[in-house]
């Protein structure tokens, strides 16, 4: 059963995510067509990865600096942001930076400890797909996007704060 939500629907996940310690050969020899590589590998082998026949995406861990993707966002169809534990909220800011500062138009996916109660916030920060953590009730999670009808403040999803929409 898929546990990936995109556009508020469950979808199959074509992407294979490779862990931090992989090398370039592991990517090239992998049978998958869509591969998410760790940030460090991307930084080191960007050109080779771009030249290979596969679709390549990147995942950032919570301490990685999204600004370092400034020149790459145009080439990436997907950027995954890792939540190593739900209370590590750095990836919320990373998503905002990718959207608002770097004007990233591709897909941003939350990975890691992605729980129901964070989905509403993630969506507001410009994250648009959600690879749920093990054990999260999928039906329940799909309702999270409607937890609140509106937000007071300016968000990626709705840049006008409520006071400019009244």
């Amino acid at each position, binding site marked *: 059963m898929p546990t990936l939500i995109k556009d508020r629907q469950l979808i199959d996940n074509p992407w294979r995510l490779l862990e931090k310690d992989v090398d370039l050969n592991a990517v090239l020899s992998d049978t998958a067509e869509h591969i998410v590589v760790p940030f460090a590998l991307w930084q080191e082998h960007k050109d080779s990865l771009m030249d290979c026949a596969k679709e390549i995406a990147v995942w950032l861990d919570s301490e990685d600096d999204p600004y370092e993707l400034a020149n790459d966002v145009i080439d990436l169809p997907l950027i995954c942001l890792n939540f190593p534990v*739900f*209370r*590590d*909220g*750095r990836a*919320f*800011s*990373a998503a*905002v930076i990718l959207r*608002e*500062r770097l004007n990233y138009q591709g897909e941003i996916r939350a990975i890691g400890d992605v729980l129901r109660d*964070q989905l*509403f*916030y*993630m*969506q*507001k*920060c410009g994250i648009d797909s959600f690879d749920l953590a093990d054990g999260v009730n999928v039906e329940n999670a799909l309702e999270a996007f409607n937890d*609140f009808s509106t*937000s*007071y*403040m*300016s*968000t990626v999803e709705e*840049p*006008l*704060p*409520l*006071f*400019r929409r*009244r």
Partner: protein
Amino acid sequence: MAELAEVEMHAIQTSGNCIRNTTTDQFAGVAVDEIEDSRPWCEIIRQWSSFHPEFAYLPRKFKIAVCGTPNDQAATQVHDIGLYIKKDNKGEIGFQVLVGGGLGRTPVIGATICEFLPWQHLLTYLDAIMRVYNRFGRRDNKYKARIKILVKALGVEAFREKVEAEWLYDKDGSATLTQNEVERCKGFFTDPDYQELDNTDQTIADAAASDLLFSHWLERNVAPHKKSGYRIVNLCLKETGVAPGDITDTQMEFVADLADKYSFGEVRVTHEQNLVLTDVRLQDLYTVYLALKTESLATPYLGLLNDIVCCPGGDFCSLANAKSIPIAESIQRRFEDFDVQKNIGEITLNISGCMNACGHHHVGNIGILGVDKKGAEFYQVTLGGSADRDTSLGKVLGPSFAQSEMPDVIDKIINVYLENRQENENFLATYNRIGMEPYKEKVYANAD
């Protein structure tokens, strides 16, 4: 929770590593010397911070205070962000922005990173501070996760540069505040239906002349009001024998009724563990006083020695290293005589039962901290703290004391002050002038 919601109360963001509820001066909106009512600005910040999607999982909890009066009663400088409302020479409102203040195990006074932030930019600037903190604050150790540690680690100037760099993107963006929104929020904090009254009242003056306790109470617990003929009434919840700040349900119902009858239904709670009736007519003061007296709520020593701020301590709290309420009581019993307290004058005494500092002992003129020494409860004393506009952190007097020694220790400290004070000098001013040494000599004399 549903019942709370019926009276416009909630518990949202009252725990967790998020932006907690914004606090301010208990006299906001009624203080005679106010620069600007801070409440609408608190409300603007409350709305911005409620369910803020980016800042709900910060490294640690986060507290913001706003102060609109020259006499800071909000402990602004010991908050994660402190905002002093100012006016520039054109009369425009802005904020002096301080970051990285806090108490607890690492007490720090906030550092100014912006001298004057025009009001339009309040939220974008707060966003910038929060983003820097969210990204770079430590998450590996919860004792080093508050913003004060980040500001110290980077240095104030480097922190300011990061904030300014972040702010450049959002400055003048859609989150820039509008006059309309400020006016709308001010609309939530309008004046009650004040009457036009004289600012003097002969019957009250006569009552004060004939009732000594009432005159004490008038002098200590009643503050001037921005509106002629009105006064701010403070209920000092420091009756000796009752835990500081405690009030029974019966008393609370009584205060609520009193507020309905005499203060437009408004009661406020202070971080000094007292209550405030914000809008009492001068002509009603004696009636209100007599009513309060029937419920033991007319204790006339606001701001004096027995107005002790005290955490629940070891009697109630599982984090505590030592009891604190019995210490407060033993000191209150020693100084119970009002004339003694009045002679000592303005002073703050704060007690915490552990280094989490819920009793704000670092910013008490006299601070008492309960410590655990090989399983026994001892008390460390600090002098010279203040939460005023000139905030300062107390310095440790010396080795700690047993519980039974505490009243004598405080007595000696007070005596050093009384022997050394110059005209009109309060406890803090004398300490700042003569330093720690005379206190140390007196307290530890013959100790060996």
